């Protein structure tokens, strides 16, 4: 039991971080970014190259991974998404193609062989007889710090309020003098950096391989659907429901079945309550 509670909290924090960058894009731009998994993959690989190949120190490498996420997020918006802004389905298709292209780029550079990442902080300790990796505790702690700062940013700063305004009513926001293009750019940059940071942690949780973008993307989709598309608080709650459900399934039933319950939950929620737990399509 202690095992499930502790591991559940640790995993859920990471899932919340993975999902929040995804939900912001939907909330502001009303589009699904299927290339979101690429920011996660990119974060992981950039950090890997910096630390394990170029032997840079960990903290600057971490920043470098975040920067890569920002650049790629902004580029996705400027190059692809802006062209198809009036057509959400075209955005989904073109970002999916982009994701597959980036997967091929990663295969080209790093081959298909999986690579393991060194933990950010090595070692483990025990609480209530549950063995915890320090790395995972650190990842969850940083996730919470990032999520907390994001909430402060969204609610207390001028630009954060502008983001919320656009997510509630893009036209109304434009009328009151908010440049939607600028807000979109900021949101895509934020989404990129959140994805890349989540990617560094996710890669230390699992491993690096060219197909690694799919699982976090599907998890983000699941979290966002269950929580209600576009709601940050809803995403946090849903990340915990899904995180705990996965850990409980892994511990008590079978590790292979955890994905099945998550997907079944998506179907049930979408069919029964398409807006999710707290969905009102605004941040």
């Amino acid at each position, binding site marked *: 039991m202690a095992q499930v509670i502790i591991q559940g909290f640790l995993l859920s924090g990471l899932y919340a971080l993975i999902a929040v960058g995804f939900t912001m894009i939907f909330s502001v731009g009303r589009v699904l970014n299927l290339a979101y998994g690429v920011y996660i993959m990119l974060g992981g690989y950039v950090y890997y190259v910096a630390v394990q190949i170029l032997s840079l120190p960990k903290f600057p490498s971490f920043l470098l991974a975040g920067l890569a996420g920002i650049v790629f997020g902004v580029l996705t918006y400027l190059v692809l998404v802006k062209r198809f802004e009036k057509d959400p*389905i075209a955005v*989904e298709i073109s970002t999916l*193609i982009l994701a597959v*292209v980036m997967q091929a780029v990663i295969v*080209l550079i790093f081959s298909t062989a999986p690579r393991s990442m060194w933990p950010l902080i090595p070692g483990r300790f025990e609480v209530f007889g549950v063995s915890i990796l320090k790395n995972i505790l650190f990842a969850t702690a940083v996730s919470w710090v990032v999520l907390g700062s994001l909430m402060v940013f969204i609610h207390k700063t001028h630009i954060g309020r502008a983001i919320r305004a656009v997510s509630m009513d893009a036209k109304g926001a434009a009328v009151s003098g908010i440049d939607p293009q600028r807000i979109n750019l900021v949101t895509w940059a934020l989404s990129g950096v959140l994805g890349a940071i989540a990617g560094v942690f996710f890669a230390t949780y699992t491993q690096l391989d060219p197909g690694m973008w799919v699982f976090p993307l599907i998890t983000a989709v699941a979290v966002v659907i269950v929580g209600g598309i576009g709601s940050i608080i809803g995403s946090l709650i849903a990340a915990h429901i899904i995180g705990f459900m996965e850990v409980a399934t892994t511990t008590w039933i079978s590790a292979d*079945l955890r*994905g*099945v319950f998550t*997907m079944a939950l998506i179907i049930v929620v979408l*069919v029964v309550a398409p807006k999710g737990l707290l969905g009102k399509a605004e941040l």
Partner: protein
Amino acid sequence: MRGWLVFGLLMFSLPLFLSTGTLRIFVMANFLAIFAMSWDALSGRTGYISFGHPFLIGIAGYTTAMLTYHLGVPLYLSIPAAVVVTMIGGTLFFLPALRIRGTYFALVTLAFMEIMYHLTQVIAPKVTGGTRGLSGLPEMVSGAIPNYYLTCSVMLLIGIGLWLLIRTGLGTALSAIGVDEEAVKSSGLNTNRIKLFIFTISAMIAGIGGALYVHYLGSIAPRALFDINFLFSILVAALVGGAGTIVGPIMGAYFLTFLLEYLRPYIPGAGRFVLYGVITLVVYYFAPKGLYSIFSSLRQRLSGKAGTG
């Protein structure tokens, strides 16, 4: 109809000129065309975007694979059985479409695909072959030329069938659902019946294609079918060719399959897939309505009159 006749004659005369290696590529293109047409029937016009076609193709493949592998059921029974099972699967798809559409519908169908990916590995791995799948499945016909004729005929029959179907009022109704479903309802049409019908048709085509596909490959595995890259090929073939046109997805499937093959000698290894993806993205970027629309507008300009579609 004349266009189909010319196309059919051309396709049937190809084995006279081409090597068996090239014919094998055509076989793969024919399969992709069948899958893309199945996707197009359901999603091309209606706006119910399916991300779960690998789910339909996969259950057809697994049904016939398990029947033949474990029970020795002959193909002429196992393939129809697979098609029926897939049509039942298609009605599963239909249930969420009663309430949700667009992006949400796409995500539910994606969830269906992911569930099957996990289930085939976990539930009764002895029957499904688990992660490694099943291999050594019987062939329908053997050799490149018979397989070419088989897939070609099936593809043409499906294409002509869908084309005739879409030319009736159904095509208009489907397009109207894509534009404004409420308006179609209020004009007195039962949209749920129309949707159920086209979902079943789409599933049937996916079932035929999927069942033949695994017997052509001779093997089946979860990662080969319930996979986002497989979904990518189907979606992109339909969209790059031209969604909602039936002919477009065939063009898209040929374009993509041959693009990948003809890049092979020039770019070895993984670089080929990068270029393939980039070209696909560029085509989609500049012609989101697909290659078919480019050709038909060219034809209109050349002949100086409206094309017949």
